[in-house]
């Protein structure tokens, strides 16, 4: 079920972090009018309740961002901005900008903070942005990534901010006093910029062999208007994951097209590790790593390696029957709540 739409409002960013495609030199961006139109389309899907503005750095859009927040809010949709907090140059500056976002109707804010971002953005700015939220009891979650040797940890932030942070659990309900000091810690996924130089001994590994629960559950709109049917971590150069131009295609048509795509169904139903296994069976000389950081990591690899793609192009017809049957089974089983609860968590 599609519950949210996320705009990668611009690929421009005042940071240039490792493992991210955004940078000060990327100029792609959505206009306010384009976002407003797509918000209306998303609203008409009937299932979307949240609009996320991410990037790049969405606050670089200035008035267009405020307009889009205002429009989404006026349609009864919740809104979230994912920012690096650069606008917290001083506490007063942070308060002023936050007030503008709140006045536009912003519901909640995520601030990225970790060793990667803080190579480019002073931590004092994040502190000011965070404390501006905290003193107003405005919903704020610190989006934090970690490796084994990270300097910026939850404890480090607690000491620097002078506020005890609360580890976010999506299944919990938080009081207003708590929901303005949440932190969600994930792992660093070494994809795109400088992925080759990742220190493998420093990365934290999570499970990577399951199916992907993000494909066609998350609707992401790229800064150049492309439809991205997953969480958007993987490089934008993969045609299977960077699809229709939503400047020329209706959102629902793009969803339907993606919904019937073989590769996306394969990723969603059996996972990228299953694709890797298939490729290995067809060409045993193709080697994969013994371990991946997570599902996005292996998905990025299989979809960006030319040798893997070559095998897939040659043999993809052989898997149509199985994936089509699996999908047909899914549609039969979908209304079986107990079965789906088990099916979706493995």
């Amino acid at each position, binding site marked *: *079920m599609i519950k949210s739409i996320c705009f990668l409002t611009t690929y421009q960013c005042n940071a240039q972090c490792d493992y991210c*495609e955004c*940078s000060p030199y990327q100029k792609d961006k959505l206009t306010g009018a384009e976002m407003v139109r797509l918000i209306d389309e998303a609203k*008409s*899907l009937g*299932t979307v309740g949240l609009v996320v503005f991410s990037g790049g750095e969405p606050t670089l859009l200035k008035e267009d961002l405020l307009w889009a927040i205002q429009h989404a809010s006026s349609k009864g949709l919740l809104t979230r901005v994912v920012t690096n907090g650069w606008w917290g140059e001083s506490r007063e500056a942070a308060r002023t900008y936050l007030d503008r976002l709140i006045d536009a109707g912003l519901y909640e804010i995520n601030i990225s903070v970790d060793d990667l971002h803080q190579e480019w953005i002073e931590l004092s700015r994040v502190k000011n942005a965070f404390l501006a939220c905290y003193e107003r009891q405005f919903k704020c979650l610190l989006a934090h990534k970690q490796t084994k040797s990270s300097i910026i940890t939850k404890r480090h932030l607690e000491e620097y901010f002078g506020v005890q942070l609360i*580890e976010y*659990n999506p*299944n919990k309900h938080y009081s207003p006093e708590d929901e303005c000091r949440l932190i969600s810690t994930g792992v660093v996924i070494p*994809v*795109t*910029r400088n992925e080759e130089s990742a220190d493998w001994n420093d990365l934290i590994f*999570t*499970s990577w062999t399951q*199916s*992907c*629960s993000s*494909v*066609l*559950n998350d609707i992401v709109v790229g800064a150049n208007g492309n439809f991205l049917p997953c969480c958007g971590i993987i490089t934008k*150069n*993969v*045609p299977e994951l960077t699809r229709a131009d939503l400047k020329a295609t*209706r959102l*629902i048509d793009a*969803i339907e097209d993606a*919904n019937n*795509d*073989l*590769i*996306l*169904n394969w990723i*969603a*139903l059996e996972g990228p590790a299953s694709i890797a296994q298939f490729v290995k069976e067809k060409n045993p000389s193709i080697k994969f790593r013994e371990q991946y950081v997570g599902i996005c990591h292996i998905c990025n690899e299989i979809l*960006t*390696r*030319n040798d893997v*793609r*070559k095998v897939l*192009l040659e043999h993809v*017809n052989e898997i149509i029957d*199985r994936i*089509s*049957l*699996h*999908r*047909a*089974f*899914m549609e*039969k089983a*979908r209304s*079986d709540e107990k*079965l*789906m*609860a*088990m*099916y*979706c*968590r*493995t």
Partner: protein
Amino acid sequence: MSDQPIDKVLRVVKPFVPIKQGIRPYPNQKVPDYMLKLVKDDSAYQAFIANPAESLKREGIQPETLDVDMFFDLAKVLRDRSKGIDSIIDKIAESVSKKETSEGRQYNFDHSRSWAYRYESAIFHERGTSEEKSKSEMVGTTNKFEQSGISIRPEEILRHEINLLFFPAQPLVTPSLVNKIKENLSTDISNELVP
């Protein structure tokens, strides 16, 4: 095209050739219906293993119209994935950080197995979500290797289970939803055209 991965940020050398292939509507709905039966019904699955061709015929499916090996393999994958609550306990147990106060396991003559765990503190990490609890009990039993169990859990874990039941993170969009939305959109458009 080179076998080396291309630079994925700014220096794209050549665009990837798209793998353009769709799934197709399954022509014989008896096949996915039977798959669902095999996943849910142990005796049907045992009968299928014993004699696949005959079992398929009994369901009105001609075995020669189906890749039986593929069907069997997928059924096994789906059954493994759809195991009952004990597979979750087993899975959690593999990834749990816990301080146990007591633990008991018993293997019985009838090939069943019973267990009880009591935790003072536990943290579960699973698929990007985490669950914490301060005190918990788990008791269960398996019979003839077919597992079943009871878990007594704090309210927050129970709420998580209920959320999963009613709002499971189902992959992909149901086609009927797409059709419904499209119908609504066309109705909206025709309404707009009415003077």
